[in-house]
């Protein structure tokens, strides 16, 4: 956890830039570690309580450690009617974890998301932010095999 200070320093002069800094921290660590949150609060002149309030407001930020790859399954209505619910179930079974959990090897975390704006290809999942359209339960092994 060497460089969260450097990351924060790059955004420090942006007014209101704590959210940008959180994004950058998450890109590095996949979550916002406690020390990084404290440091960001200081850099942006927020109290730690406030910074924690900001971090926990946004669904894409996590203050808890997560897996290397974060799989999000869209559960909004357009994806739901296109088979999103079954897809989620299939993912849970395939990974052997429930929604919100991380696989024992620390590789995958499974989360639900609301619409990711890729509705031409429902149902959609995203892996570390990258949308993958028209996912069927059958395609899961093939898709996940490229995430080592």
């Amino acid at each position, binding site marked *: 956890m060497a460089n969260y200070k450097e990351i924060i320093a790059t955004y420090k002069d942006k007014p209101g830039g704590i959210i940008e800094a959180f994004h950058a921290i998450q890109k590095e660590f996949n979550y916002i570690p*406690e020390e990084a*949150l*404290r440091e960001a*609060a200081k850099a942006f002149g927020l*109290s*730690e*309580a*406030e*910074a*924690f*309030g900001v971090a*926990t*407001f*946004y*669904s894409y930020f996590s*203050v808890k450690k997560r897996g290397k790859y974060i799989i999000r399954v869209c559960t909004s209505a357009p994806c739901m009617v296109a088979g999103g619910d079954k897809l989620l179930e299939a993912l849970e079974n395939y990974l052997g974890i429930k929604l919100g959990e991380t696989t024992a090897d620390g590789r995958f975390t499974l989360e639900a998301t609301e619409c990711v704006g890729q509705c031409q290809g429902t149902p959609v999942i995203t892996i570390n932010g990258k949308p993958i359209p028209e996912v069927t339960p059958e395609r899961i092994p093939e898709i996940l095999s490229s995430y080592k």
Partner: protein
Amino acid sequence: MITLTVDGKQVQVPEGTMLLEACQLAGADIPTLCYDPDLKRVGSCRMCVVEVEGRPGLVASCVTPVANGMIVHTESPRVVEARKVILELLLARHKLECHTCEKNGNCLLQDYCYRYGVTTSRFSGEMPKFTKEDPNPFIERDYDKCIMCTRCVRACEQITGAKAISVAYRGHHAKIATAFDGNLADSTCAFCGQCLMVCPVGALTSKLSKGKGRAYEVEKVRTICPYCGTGCTIELNVKDNKVVGVTSVRDEELSPVNKGALCVKGRFGWDFINSPERLTTPLIKENGEFREASWDEALDYIAEKLKAIKSEYGPDAIAVFSSARATNEENYLIQKMARAAIGTNNIDHCARL
């Protein structure tokens, strides 16, 4: 000036006045939960909604500026129905235990439910389970009674400046929390208790006064906090001739120095009054042991010693250290004694406890 009609009564108020104040001027009693005269308005509890003719929805009176010709109804059936539903929604998340609650009789949720005849909630379902023990000596945090008015957060920031707490998480999971949702003692909390002062319900209460009597059982004696020279107004809560708590007075006229704000000593440091360890007579140390003495004996003893030191080493061998807990008059007298009776300028005091 703006002229508007509230419940059939015409009132005139300066431009920029909020509807809440205009309605109050017209004699309307508007229920409010998140509104606090000393804090920035957030307009979020929606208890203060009123009906303004021509507006599509109800408006939150505490944050809606008046406009000329407004026709306002503060207790129309639509308003009453909305307030009832809001109260029922709050009840549905509220650990209702008025029978043992410290705030029974001094609780806005209780008052408004009484006023609108809300006995149970049509929306009851899952209850929050926020509460966990916060091991600190002063403040009981029971967020299962919290109605999320955020007054405590604003008081902590805007009155005390400690910013120990904030709203964390989102939506129905939102709760009042310190950084990392931990204990107050690990935060920047100064235990001033301003949060507890503004909390309209029983979510924040004093651990020290717990079980010692509700607001209506105690006699409130207004006095000045004895701890430091700031001179904050406090109210001793007295029951059966015993001090069972301290509250503060938020009225600026009655509490000009602090307007209700206190520090940890003023608000929570009163239990010494009934402490069995408290000294009630002077003690004189002889052969390493204290023994009780009368005031006359003790004062003679001190005078003799001071005289002896002064004649042997001169007055500047003596220094007088007075207390910030003493009043101005007492401090004046002790410096007079130092300078005139003893003859030294070695006089100082502890600036603050």
